[in-house]
């Protein structure tokens, strides 16, 4: 249990530390070290859970099982690699005068604040605290979106704040309804919002209340997942904020919001005994998947392009969790991992490419491979991976989603295939001229740290070729937990 407290304590201690020292040149390294320590704590926690099973803290406020522990490790890992990239990146932004010392302090403090909120969302056992932490994640990142203070970034941040704020308020209403249903059976007291207690008594809860509660929870947390039609904030926030922010928003925040929805689905399924929650998730997921795939074609800004790709993949995951069979759940968990590794790698590369070209407009980014081969190839390989080409992990997970869909809903398979094809075309029509193409005059290589990208892409490649036994075991256990059966 000590590992959990360490995991939450490290970013908590990091916030005041970086608030004081965030403007020093070594702040980037300090940030990375804190994230490295958190990763170590998360691995310790994972080993703990692997050996001794689910853990409940004293006071029942924290709960770790095989479902959230693997997301904790993933969160810590992406947090670390992104912070490795963010150090030199923010230093470069300071040199060209886009951020001041004060804003740099804010940036690093909120980086740790965001990580804290993410860990709390994942590890808490209290559905209410989960909401508080989710709102905390918005509050931590909203000022970072407007870090550059351009009119566009202020607009993006305002939209992000208002949409996510109002959206997540719906989730609080859902939580109140959940508590209302639980109190009728369990009596007044603090226990009725604990996830373990709710899950244990799910069958006794009033189905009418729970189905209404789930609608609100799905809309609320769905805003943060970026489900269409609640996705408007996502491309704006991703494109106008600093690039490391885009990487952790896309790689972590969206995942953790989906995690929250799935936790709620587990409760509702236990109470209703019908497929209502799954059907809702399938509908929203499929809509997001198709709409985002179409919107990919219209983009002019490189970060907006990849944020639409994030919506598309989150839609696919929501859909797969909605299908709900063990295979589909396994595929969704797997896709969460591969998507978050690939997408954060892509955003890091995109950040470098934008610094290299001095713009985010795709029609002005040209000849990356000729100017700086590592960035050009990084972007190309990353795009190949995210578009779902073999042998990368995204292919494997998307293929699994397809197979699972074919088994339960064969008539939806062509729709999925159409979406995947559309997304592929949408990505490549933009990427090809950027990567190849003639070099514009005066474009020079920049100092780039592509080690995180390579590590991520190598991991995705590895996952595409074979899932390591311990990871497969994790996925199996989490699948069993969520869908109630082992994947055959």
């Amino acid at each position, binding site marked *: 249990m000590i590992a959990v407290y360490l995991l939450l304590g490290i970013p908590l201690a990091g916030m005041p530390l970086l608030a004081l020292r965030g403007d020093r040149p070594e702040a980037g390294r300090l940030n990375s070290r804190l994230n490295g320590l958190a990763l170590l704590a998360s691995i310790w926690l994972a080993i703990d859970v692997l050996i001794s099973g689910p853990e409940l803290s004293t006071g029942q406020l924290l709960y770790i099982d095989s479902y959230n522990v693997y997301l904790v490790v993933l969160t810590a890992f992406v947090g670390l690699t992104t912070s490795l990239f963010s150090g030199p990146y923010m230093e470069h932004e300071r040199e060209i005068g886009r951020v001041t010392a004060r804003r740099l302090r804010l940036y690093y403090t909120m980086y740790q604040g965001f990580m804290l909120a993410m860990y709390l969302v994942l590890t808490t056992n209290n559905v209410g605290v989960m909401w508080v932490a989710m709102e905390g994640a918005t509050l931590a990142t909203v000022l970072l979106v407007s870090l550059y203070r351009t009119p566009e970034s202020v607009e993006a941040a305002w939209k992000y704040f208002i949409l996510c704020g109002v959206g997540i308020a719906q989730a609080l209403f859902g939580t109140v309804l959940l508590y*209302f249903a639980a109190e009728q059976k369990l009596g007044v007291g603090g226990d009725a919002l604990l996830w373990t207690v709710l899950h244990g008594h799910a069958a006794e809860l009033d189905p009418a209340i729970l189905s209404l509660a789930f609608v609100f929870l799905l809309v609320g947390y769905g805003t943060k997942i970026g489900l269409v039609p609640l996705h408007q904030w996502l491309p704006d926030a991703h494109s106008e904020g600093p690039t490391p922010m885009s990487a952790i928003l896309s790689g972590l925040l969206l995942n953790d919001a989906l995690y929250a929805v799935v936790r709620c689905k587990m409760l509702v399924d236990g109470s209703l005994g019908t497929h209502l929650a799954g059907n809702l998730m399938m509908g929203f997921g499929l809509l997001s998947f198709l709409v985002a795939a179409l919107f990919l074609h219209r983009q002019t800004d490189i970060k907006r392009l990849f944020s639409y790709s994030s919506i598309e993949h989150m839609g696919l995951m929501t859909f797969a969790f909605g299908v709900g069979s063990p295979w589909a759940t396994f595929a969704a968990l797997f896709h969460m991992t591969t998507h978050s590794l690939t997408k954060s790698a892509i955003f890091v590369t995109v950040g470098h490419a934008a610094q290299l070209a001095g713009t985010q407009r795709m029609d002005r980014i040209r000849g990356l491979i000729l100017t700086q081969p590592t960035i050009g190839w990084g972007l190309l390989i990353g795009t190949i991976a995210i578009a779902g080409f073999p042998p990368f992990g995204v292919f494997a997970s998307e293929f699994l989603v397809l197979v699972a869909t074919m088994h339960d809903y064969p008539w939806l398979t062509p729709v999925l295939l159409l979406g995947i094809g559309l997304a592929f075309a949408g990505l490549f029509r933009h990427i090809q001229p950027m990567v190849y193409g003639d070099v514009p005059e005066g474009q020079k290589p920049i100092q780039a740290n592509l080690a995180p990208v390579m590590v991520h892409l190598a991991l995705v490649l590895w996952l595409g070729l074979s899932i390591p036994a311990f990871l497969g075991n994790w996925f199996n256990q989490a699948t069993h937990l969520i869908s109630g059966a082992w994947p055959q």
Partner: protein
Amino acid sequence: MAITELTLYQQAILLLAGLIALTSFLMLGQSRLVRLVLIFALQGCLLAAATALAASVLDYPHLYISAALSFILKGLVIPILLQRLIHRMGLHRVMDTIDHPARVMMAGTALMVFSYYVSLPVVRHSTLVTLNAIAVSLAVVLLGMLLMITRRQAVAHVVGFMSIENGLFFAAVVATYGMPMVVELGVAFDVLVAAVVFGVFFFQIRSSIDSLNVDQLSKLSEVDR
């Protein structure tokens, strides 16, 4: 069930629920920002009163803390903060234009009916008070959204946002006798931080578009520029 058969406490809660819904409608029709914030403060006080009443009658001492939090945050701190911002930004004479006020009011009424319609199956096993509480709080949430949709001033958006939170708190107090303390404190903390962040944003928005009319925040869109 006739209303006279209810206990005095239940009648009082129903009255407060009605008043809270009324303040939401008042906000919807109020175009002066200073008065809008005043009505919002009134709503916060009504919420605090309902919470305190529940605490004393039903004997849940932890609700007193919740009532105090509501009163201090929603009734005093946030309205005062907003008033000061309005005066500092010279917005106290500005009239926010409301397009089609009559239609907005009609839409508000429709939302109220809709809230009752949604709440009915949920609370069929519960008392009249719970039904009204859930329906009114859902209506306050939806009316807050309608307020945000129909306004252009950033201040009005913040008031709408905060009044949504009021609706949620009211549901939590009357239907479930408050949330667990740790959640209650966490939510209050989030609301406070959100209020501060909103203040920061006012300055950022004003320095970027020279006013607080969020209609002018329209640079980012999917339409080709």
